[in-house]
């Protein structure tokens, strides 16, 4: 079976599902961050697959934008994790409950 658009979309959907379930299951902020990166990559795969099948370069430019946003998100997010760890001595998201009640 030659890989066609449907198989690429299927792979992307499976990766997105794994990332989405991981965000709910993980309690570690870094683990959640990595799951979000996985979801972004799954979306990138659909962009590249559609770009291939419509012979259109714009999908790949969108992938470039998504990667830039992911890099900015990584820089800011990891800065937040370091500040959070300094205050709480833990990176467990359940300890971030200052605004509860």
């Amino acid at each position: 079976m030659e890989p066609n658009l449907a198989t690429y979309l299927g792979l992307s959907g499976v990766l997105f599902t794994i990332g989405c379930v991981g965000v709910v299951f993980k309690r570690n902020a870094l683990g959640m961050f990595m799951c979000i990166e996985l979801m972004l990559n799954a979306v990138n795969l659909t962009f590249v697959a559609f770009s291939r099948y419509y012979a259109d370069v714009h999908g790949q430019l969108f992938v470039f934008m998504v990667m830039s946003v992911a890099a900015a998100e990584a820089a800011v997010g990891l800065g937040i994790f370091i500040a959070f760890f300094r205050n709480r001595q833990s990176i467990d998201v359940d300890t971030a409950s200052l605004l509860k009640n």
Partner: protein
Amino acid sequence: MVSTALFFLFAGFAIMCAISMVYHKNPLYSAISLVGVFISLACIYVTLAAPFIAIVQILVYAGAIMVLVVFVIMLLNLDDEPKSSRLKYLYALGGGLGLVLLAQTLFVVYAVSRTPNQAIDPNATVGNTIDIGRAMYTDYLLPVEIVGVMLLMAIVGSVVLARRLSQPALELVIDNEEERRSEELTS
């Protein structure tokens, strides 16, 4: 034939690595598994005739972002996650969400496989660096500039966030915290 075998090899590797990333409790093992996902996705991009995106994927994701993550894991000296005290309904919620998304994926695959889903022009090479560069600096000039400003803001923001507070500001924060604690004790 070879491309089919390569696609299923890398797709299987990507899914295995993704599952291993969610499964492992140690953040470092998760990070290494995620690098595996990124590299196999880069190989799939090459089979999709997108060499530029494949190289950028390796450089930006497997190189820069994952090195940053591993550095943070090292700086924070994280251990395995402790035993979960989280509410059980969250696991049910996550499983249900996963099932819904998987069903949606199956529906998309079924719907797309019923349409003529072969490439319009199998010999088109839209992923060349020259094509991407031309589109980036003509049609997409403004978005590229905005992305540049956004990256600058991210640099400034991360430095401000990760910086230690100066001594007077730190004392202010500690005073506030102690006041809050004593109020909690009295109430």
